[in-house]
């Protein structure tokens, strides 16, 4: 492993940290690397880098490494880390910020998770609420795993857990407006 040239990486990434602070109110200089976030993370078992390590990457200026890590897409946004963080870093917010920035930079590591997120939001924006069957079918088709979880469908259908046709809420324009506002604010997709 070659050494990290901190004299370059740190100053070169000042802008990115400033962006996180300004746009997402995430000040990573607060983090003192205690690891309380990673220790309590229920998704940590599936992560190649722990939350603490990802924050460290950003602190050291390894921005691209942080944006391309698969782990940010494993985060379930449960916010256990944010609740327990002794320094108010709010790691869950940082993970979300990194996902948005990864998307903007075209550096999404987990294409399927990204696709799922997009389809989920699309469904909510169209109907005002989630249409599970529509989401799963589109996801399976577009991600090329046509029969994923298909065997679960009959029993769920029998128990009335799945509705074939989408149901809309009463005032779905209001939800659509939320999406529009967010898009306007972010100037992007998500």
């Amino acid at each position, binding site marked *: 492993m070659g050494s990290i040239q901190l004299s370059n990486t740190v100053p070169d990434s000042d802008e990115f940290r400033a962006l996180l602070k300004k746009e997402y109110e995430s000040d990573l200089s607060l983090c*003192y*690397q*205690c*690891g*309380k*976030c*990673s*220790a*309590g*993370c229920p998704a*940590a*078992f599936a992560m190649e*880098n*722990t939350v*603490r*390590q990802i924050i460290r990457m950003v602190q050291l200026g390894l921005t691209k490494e942080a944006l391309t890590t698969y782990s940010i897409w494993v985060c379930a946004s449960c916010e*256990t880390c944010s609740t*327990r*963080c*002794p*320094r*108010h870093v709010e790691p869950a917010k940082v993970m979300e910020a990194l996902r948005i920035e990864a998307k903007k930079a075209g550096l999404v590591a987990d294409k399927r998770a990204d696709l799922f997120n997009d389809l989920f939001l699309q469904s909510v924006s169209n109907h005002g609420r989630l249409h599970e069957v529509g989401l799963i079918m589109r996801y399976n088709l577009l991600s090329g795993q046509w029969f994923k979880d298909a065997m679960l469908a009959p029993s769920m259908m029998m128990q009335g857990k799945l509705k074939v046709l989408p149901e809309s809420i009463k005032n779905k324009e209001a939800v659509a407006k939320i999406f529009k506002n967010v898009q306007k604010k972010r100037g992007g997709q998500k």
Partner: protein
Amino acid sequence: MKRIGVFVCHCGTNIANTVHCDQVAEVAKDFPGVVYSCDYKYMCAEPGQQLIQDAVREHNLDGYVVAACSPRMHEPTFRKCAERAGLNPYMIEQVNIREQCSWVHADKEKGTEKSIDLLRMAVAKARKNEPLSSSTIPVTKRALVIGAGIAGIQTAIDIADNGFQVTLLDREHSIGGRMAQVDKTFPTLDCSACILTPKMVEAAQHPNIEMVTYAEVTAVDGFVGNFDVTIRKKARYVDFDKCTGCGACQEKCPKKVSSEFEMGLGPRKAIYVPFPQAVPNKPVIDAEHCRYLLDGKCGVCKKICPTEAVDYEQKDEVIVERYGSIVVATGFDQFDISKYEEYGAGRYPDVITGLHLERLMNASGPTAGKIKRPSDGKVPEKIVFIKCVGSRDEAKGRPYCSKACCMYVAKHATLIKEKMPQSKSYIFYMDVRTGGKSYEEFYKRTQEQYDGQYIRGRVSKIFQVGDKLIVRGEDSLIGRPVEIEADLVVLAAGMEPRADAVALARTLGISYDQHGWYTEAHPKLQPIETHTAGIYLAGVCQGPKDIPESVAQASAAAVKATGLLSKGELTSEAMIAECNEAVCAGCGLCISVCPYKAIEKKKVSERVHGQMKERVVAVVNPGLCQGCGACTVNCPSSAMNINGFTNEQILAEVDALCQR
């Protein structure tokens, strides 16, 4: 017209880099009253002061203005310089063009302009300066020490050894404080009681020390040299003159209460001595739990007492005593761990604090020194320590380091291994802070000889599975979550100010920080003094400390307190309020706003239209007045003035600024 001199200081480059000092000195020459003006590199240095003295004599100056740093730094220097030059020290003014100009401005032109304005104002004021003199007040040669932990005891002994009377006061009924609860002390592992109890006994027997326990300070009046302190002595319901401390009452008392001294791990009785080495070693009745005092039933202690010392009729006693100086040594509370819900603290009996462990290890503790789990009395094998609980945690409102925990955890791990060689200690840390003589070596030994396993990371969660506690953290050095099945978890709970620290600070009139630690007058150069003259700090009440540091500060506080007491009289402030009796209407508004109770009413007789008439006016006690100015702004008839800051002088400054 007064002849004023102006001296502009460069403060090396501190001022000169942002202010054209020569220009300021040049402009000042044209100010009304200025007969001499110059600039120099260091006015506070010997040649600078010589320059001032020479100029005073040569130009026959009546007063002068120094434009330099903050008056807090060097006003006394320049006042003394004036005295040496034969001037009244209050004929000078100091303008702060460092903190107020050069350090806060980047633009040299603007810095210069502002310096000139400030100087113009000061010259206008200096022209109206009058010679002032201070008076003297006698000093009561007795000290009060509030809090009788190790810091308070040490302070009292040192003051007493210096030959002064001292009252050692504690609200608990034994002296000894937190150190009495501790089993052994780092880094030498002396038994805490073995080194503390001789000091407790010395304090109790010293002819110059009056021990007042089970008592609280409820009010403080007066000022440095003469504090009038109101002390409430709580009813003990035991006559100490009759009691022999035989202990029969304790044995027979039927009411068991959870012992505060044992951190709730053991029982005590309603009539009790908190621990075997307590001083005084005579019992008190806890009125909240005594059956007789609550319901009028029982009375066993009174029946059994061979000397008839039990007296249920005793009442709280309030006394007022006068002291010359006060040392505050009220210590700390342990952080309330139940705020860490993720650690199950307060819910799981086997998640305890360092002080609990001290009691479990202590030979006179509830388990007679055998470490047993509070839940089932089993001997624990795997013990997890978690550091920085209630320290370095902004989310819990405690961002500071409690300083002693790193060492006490190392001590605990060492002692546990010595007591139970089959046990294993795991220590979660974020940083190991062992700054102190022989501290780092001690920590090293904990790892090398006593098998302490240090893990870098903060624990996220503790949960119970069967009779085990599962501790989940991240080893941040390897970057992976880790789990330990523990029998006992010890939280290194930090220190926090006493719950009523702020209330006491208000009673005493001393300042405190956002957490409630008492504030020293200067963080580096006056770490013992408070902002209130005559009140000093010792021990943890000022901020987290370990025992050696507390003792060092205690001795320092004793020196400060005796230094004050050894003076026959104190020089009072010269810049104090004065009442112009001719215009005073005697309304008394000033009396109600004066924080030092320095103003009283008096009657004056005067002749009006050929008749003698009596009239009420305000009069200022120069010994008590601190020159705060509250009365001057409150006075509806402008009769009150602060000498050196008269209304006339302040208006002259305003005029000077407006007329530029």
